Structures are given as structure tokens and as C-alpha cells.
């Protein structure tokens, strides 16, 4: 370990981390990252920023957040793309996505949660119970939301370990649901004003809207480059970029992603790609993928395919829609925020034709050869909605492979065979 790494131990101890377990976690994540990422050829040079971010994911970034707190700012932990980060930012808070992409402390988790709970929920509970996530420990408040039944019931138990505030997300998109959601936005503002001690104004909110939109615009640029053939960036790298969007400092991140987009646009002009032009182009849709969950992308790209798009919360659901910037009153801005967020199409909504439309439109735009529908085992919304996605895709002439899996590696042999056979089929 470097000297810098050693300096963080006191910080981790102050945060109440289990240092021994945390060392194991960092070792495992480093190994996974090395295997999945550092072996890639012809990566965009700009990705070195993300290599650095990952190497300092529990180090420098946490130190920055601690400094922010020391200066009077607050850290707000979130688990979901429906939590409006513009409001957190306007009130001088830093929004951070919490750890949930690996099996951790399942033995402890299974003492309070059923074994057949989805991996995402078991994981975020495990990171808290095992005391290995500095983000959750550093957070002044965690925002939960009523997306699926598993999450909302798990937050009741999570709330016993950490101050947690729940936003009620409606499950339908009728006018009355918008009324409920708009009220939830007001209650969220009131709660955050109380926690941060700041007052939300048209000035600070319009700036935050602009900054977060810029971040999403940068991601839109990066992802638009993936339409090219040959593809100038791997699916794994593009996924990582979105995953980090939940953690990183907003203006710095935007600048770095725009730099990568510049580089990708130059690559397209030169006809330079990371995979042969005839590599099968695959789009992934389904449950979220948190760091370090790179399993499906790694399997596809190791087998010779290339992932060109993600209709995921760690994908287009995060960056595709922007908050309207034309409002000049606080109320108008909050209306626009409410509208943008309720417009996201998660499988927890019923009916949910918007997601099916998004998937098909994106698949056509990206000229994909096939769609991989990824659902976490026991995630009822996505495992069930997979049927409708497959039906619509088949009608559109796009082959679909349905994968129900989790964060473990026990099914990797079968998964590789299925993915390879799918690539052979769509070639």
C-alpha cells in the first residue's frame, strides 16, 4: 500500500469501518477491476481518470466528502435515480450513491432478511451491517424510496441502523400520481432544508439544475458515440462512467466525461474502434448495476461481443432526460423537476409501456444485433417485465437473451455458454 493509502486508515477508523473486512473488500474490488478493466486493449486515454477514481473510491473521494462536511456541507446518500440530486446540490449537499454491487456479509443479512431477497437489497444491507461502506457511514442522511416492495420493507430495517428518509414514489403515472409526487418533492425540500440549514432559492436551484443537466449532457455525448461502428469505447468503460456519475464531484466529472467524448468523436472520425466492426452489437436492459457489478458486460465482451447501450438506472434512465431550464420561479423549477423524474420508466410502475418503447427505440438507434435482458434474481418487477420486453423486441425482429442472475460467480459457466451461443446466433 502507498503512503497515501495508509493515511486513509485513520479516516476509515473515524467513520467506524471494520478495517480488516474493509481491506478485504478493497482487495477484492481491485482484483475484479484489474481482471475486467485493465486487460482491455485500446481504451480511450480519458478512461485513466476512471482508473484513478476507482483506485481512490474509498480514499480521496471520501476525504473530499469529509472536507465538505468539515466546511459545513452535508452528505446525502441515495439508492435510486428518482431522488432529485439537483435539490440536494442546491442546498449545499453532496449526493452520493451507496454501495450495493457485491455480495457482502450475507451471513449477517440473512439473519434479518429472507434468503430469496434480490442481490441489490442484500448487498446494501450487507455493506451497512458489515461496516465496509464509507459512503453510507459518512452520510448525514440516507434517502430511501418506495420503488419495489423489497426495497421499501428493507428500508424499515435499514432505518434502524442509519437515519433514513423515505420518499413515496407513486406506482402509476396518472394526474393524481403527479400531484402526490409533486407533494413529495416539497416534503423532500423541507426535510433537506432542515438537515442542511440552507434555504432553497430560485438562484441556487437554477444553478444546480444547469450543473446536473451538464453532467447528463456529457453522458449523452459519450453514449451517442457508441452508435458508431466500429465502437470507440467498450461497454464496460461506458457503464463505469455512468456508475461513477452517482459518486463524483459534479463539475469535475462533467469536464472529464466531455474530454472522453471529445476523444471518442476523434476516434470515430479516424474509424478507430475497441472491437472489430463485425463484433455483435448488444444492448443491455433491466435491473441496475452498481460498482463492482460488471459481470454481464464482462461476460459479453470476453465472448467477443460489444455492449453499445444500457437501458438501466446505471445507463440511459439516468442521463437520457433533462430538467427543463426555462423556468424562472422556484415553483416552476420544482414542477419541472417533478416532471423529469416521474418521466423515468422503471419496472416498478404499472403499466409501464414507456420502458418498452425506450428499449425498442434505443435498440434501433444503436443498430443492435441483440438485446440482453438482465434481471436480478427475485427482482419481481424486472423478471416479470422481461416477458413484455422480449415480446416487443421479437416483433421488432431483435433477438433477446434473458438472464436472471445475481452478484455471485457460481453461474458463470452456464452464463458464458448462453451468452456465447447468443452471440453465435445473432452474428
Amino acid at each position, binding site marked *: 500500500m502507498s503512503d497515501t493509502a495508509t493515511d486513509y486508515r485513520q479516516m476509515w477508523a473515524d467513520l467506524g469501518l471494520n478495517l480488516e473486512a474493509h481491506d478485504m473488500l478493497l482487495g477484492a474490488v481491485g482484483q475484479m477491476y484489474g481482471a475486467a478493466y485493465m486487460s482491455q486493449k485500446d481504451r480511450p486515454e480519458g478512461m485513466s481518470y476512471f482508473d484513478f477514481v476507482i483506485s481512490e473510491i474509498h480514499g480521496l473521494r471520501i476525504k473530499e466528502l469529509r472536507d465538505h462536511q468539515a466546511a459545513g456541507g452535508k452528505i446525502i446518500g441515495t439508492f435510486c435515480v428518482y431522488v432529485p440530486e439537483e435539490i440536494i446540490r442546491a442546498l449545499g449537499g453532496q449526493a452520493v450513491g451507496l454501495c450495493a454491487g457485491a455480495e457482502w456479509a450475507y451471513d449477517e443479512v440473512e439473519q434479518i432478511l429472507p434468503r430469496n431477497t434480490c442481490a441489490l437489497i442484500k448487498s446494501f444491507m450487507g455493506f451497512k451491517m458489515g461496516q465496509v461502506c464509507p459512503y453510507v457511514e459518512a452520510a448525514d442522511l440516507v434517502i430511501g424510496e418506495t420503488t419495489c416492495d423489497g426495497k421499501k420493507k428493507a428500508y424499515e430495517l435499514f432505518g434502524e441502523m442509519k437515519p433514513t428518509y423515505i420518499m413515496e414514489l407513486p406506482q402509476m403515472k396518472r394526474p393524481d400520481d403527479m400531484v402526490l409526487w409533486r407533494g413529495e418533492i416539497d416534503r423532500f425540500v423541507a426535510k433537506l432544508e432542515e438537515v442542511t440549514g440552507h434555504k432553497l432559492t430560485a438562484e441556487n436551484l437554477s444553478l444546480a439544475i444547469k450543473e446536473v443537466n451538464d453532467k447528463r449532457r456529457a453522458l449523452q455525448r459519450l453514449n451517442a458515440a457508441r452508435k458508431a461502428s466500429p465502437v470507440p469505447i467498450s461497454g464496460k468503460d461506458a457503464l463505469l462512467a455512468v456508475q461513477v456519475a452517482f459518486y463524483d464531484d459534479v463539475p469535475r466529472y462533467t469536464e472529464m466525461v466531455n474530454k472522453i467524448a471529445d476523444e471518442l468523436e476523434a476516434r470515430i472520425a479516424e474509424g478507430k474502434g475497441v472491437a472489430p466492426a463485425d463484433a455483435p452489437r448488444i444492448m443491455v436492459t433491466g435491473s441496475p448495476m452498481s460498482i463492482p457489478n460488471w459481470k454481464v458486460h464482462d461476460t459479453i465482451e470476453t465472448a467477443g461481443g460489444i455492449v453499445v447501450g444500457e437501458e438501466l438506472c446505471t445507463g440511459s434512465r439516468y442521463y437520457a432526460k433533462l430538467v427543463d431550464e426555462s423556468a424562472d420561479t422556484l415553483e416552476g423549477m420544482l414542477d419541472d423537476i417533478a416532471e423529469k423524474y416521474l418521466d423515468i420508466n422503471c419496472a416498478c410502475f404499472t403499466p409501464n409501456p414507456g420502458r418498452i418503447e425506450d428499449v425498442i427505440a434505443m435498440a434501433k438507434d444503436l443498430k443492435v444485433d441483440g438485446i440482453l435482458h438482465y434481471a436480478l434474481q427475485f427482482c419481481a418487477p424486472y423478471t416479470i417485465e422481461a416477458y413484455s420486453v422480449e415480446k416487443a423486441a421479437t416483433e421488432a425482429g431483435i433477438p433477446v437473451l434473458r438472464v*436472471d442472475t445475481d452478484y455471485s460467480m457460481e453461474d458463470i459457466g*452456464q452464463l458464458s455458454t448462453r451468452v456465447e451461443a447468443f452471440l453465435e*446466433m445473432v452474428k
Partner: protein
Amino acid sequence: MTVALGIDIGSRSIDAVWLDEDGTVLDAVVRDTGWEPAAVAGELVALHRFDRVVATGYGRHHAREAFGSDVLTEITAYALGARALFPDARCVLDIGGQDTKVISLNERGGVADFEMNDKCSAGTGKFLEVMARALGYTVEQLGPAALDADAGVRISSMCTVFAESEVTGLVHRGEDRRRISLGLHESIATRTMGSLKRVGARGPLVFAGGVAKNPAMVALVTGAYAGDVIVPEESQTVGAYGAALHARSPVAAGASGRADKE
């Protein structure tokens, strides 16, 4: 003479087929996988000379490292093999040692859709092996015993672990083990029909893989499936034959390579 070799490295057996330029089978060999699949595969490969080799089965990537073969999944290998043996075939059912595959073929013989069990061994050769042991039969005795039963007992669990305890419970209740055996086969057949429907299977079905040697499974699948069911004489070597055919084809070299991770 240019010789093409296909090798199917499965969980229970390793099968090899050598073809000449015309596609005539020069030799076909089946060996138990045993404890050292790499060694067994190495011995098989050394039996006859060859110019090109394509490996399939779960050990295909190890074969790539060991003797530089190209690789193809079992799905595509079985589709190729079944279609070449039976040009009218429109779907393939392969029940192997640790997985079950159903494949529907398009008019040109390519894979149109497929389904494969993911995590567990429910309804596979391994499942039947465990159940045979629970009933005091050898694997070879299990199918004939089922055919000897007047009716099957309903087995509700398809999980190998749960079904074993269910079977043990039935044995302790004094149930005729032939009827239990029939019930086990019926539950696999029902599940298989569901998979075939999901991939849109119709027309002649080729039933391959080690479990196609089981007469009760063949009888039940034939009875339940709407089209013709064809069981190849050498049902175990369909995959190796398909891999050998792929080795013969001009696109084989370098066409199915994995990204090099090293």
C-alpha cells in the same frame, strides 16, 4: 487429406469425431470425463492426426489453451450436427449431464432461439443419476423401471436436492419405486415441453445427449411432442460431429474467438 476434428468436452463424457474432406466420419470415440478432463481430451486428440480442431462443451476454453482449438458453444454445435444428420430437423433437444438445451432452427438450419437451464441441474442427466441412487437403481435401470410402472406418482419438485428428499419420503411411505421413477421422468418431460414451446419448436425434433439413451424419456417425449421425434443412433456425439463440421467450414478459423484476456 484434410482432416477436421470436433471434440465435445462435457461434464460426463468427452466425445471426438474426425471427418474427411467430404464430411465422412473417419472415427467417433466417446470416453468418460473422469477426474482429469484435460488429460482425457489430450489422449483423444492424439488418437488420429487432424488439420483443424474445434472444441465445444463446457471444457472448450481449456481445450483452446491446451491444444489451440477454435471454440463453438454446444448450442451451435448441436444445431449444426443435428441438421447435418437430419436435414428436415427444425428443433433439437439435448439433455446432457449437467444442462438441458432446447434449440429451434430456422429454415437454413441456423439457431433461431434456444433455452438452457441456468444455475442448477434440475431435469438433467445429473438429476436422473441422483434419483436413481435414491431409488436403488443404476442409471441404466431407471428408464426401464419407469416403463414397467402402471402409473406415475406426481413429483412436485424439480430441484435435485428437494426432489431427492421428496423421493425418499415416497419410498418411506411404501410407494412402488417404479411408479416414482415414472413420475420423475414425467416431470422432466413436462418441463421439457414447456421449454420447447417457449422457443417456438415445431416440426421434426432431434433428441440428443446422453439422456436420449433412456427409453422412458424417449417414450414420454415422443408421446408429448406434436411432431416427429428422431433419436440419433449415436446421440452422444451429435455435438462433436457439429464441431467437426464447423472445423471443416471455411469460416471456422478465427471466427469464434474470445477476446484475449492475457
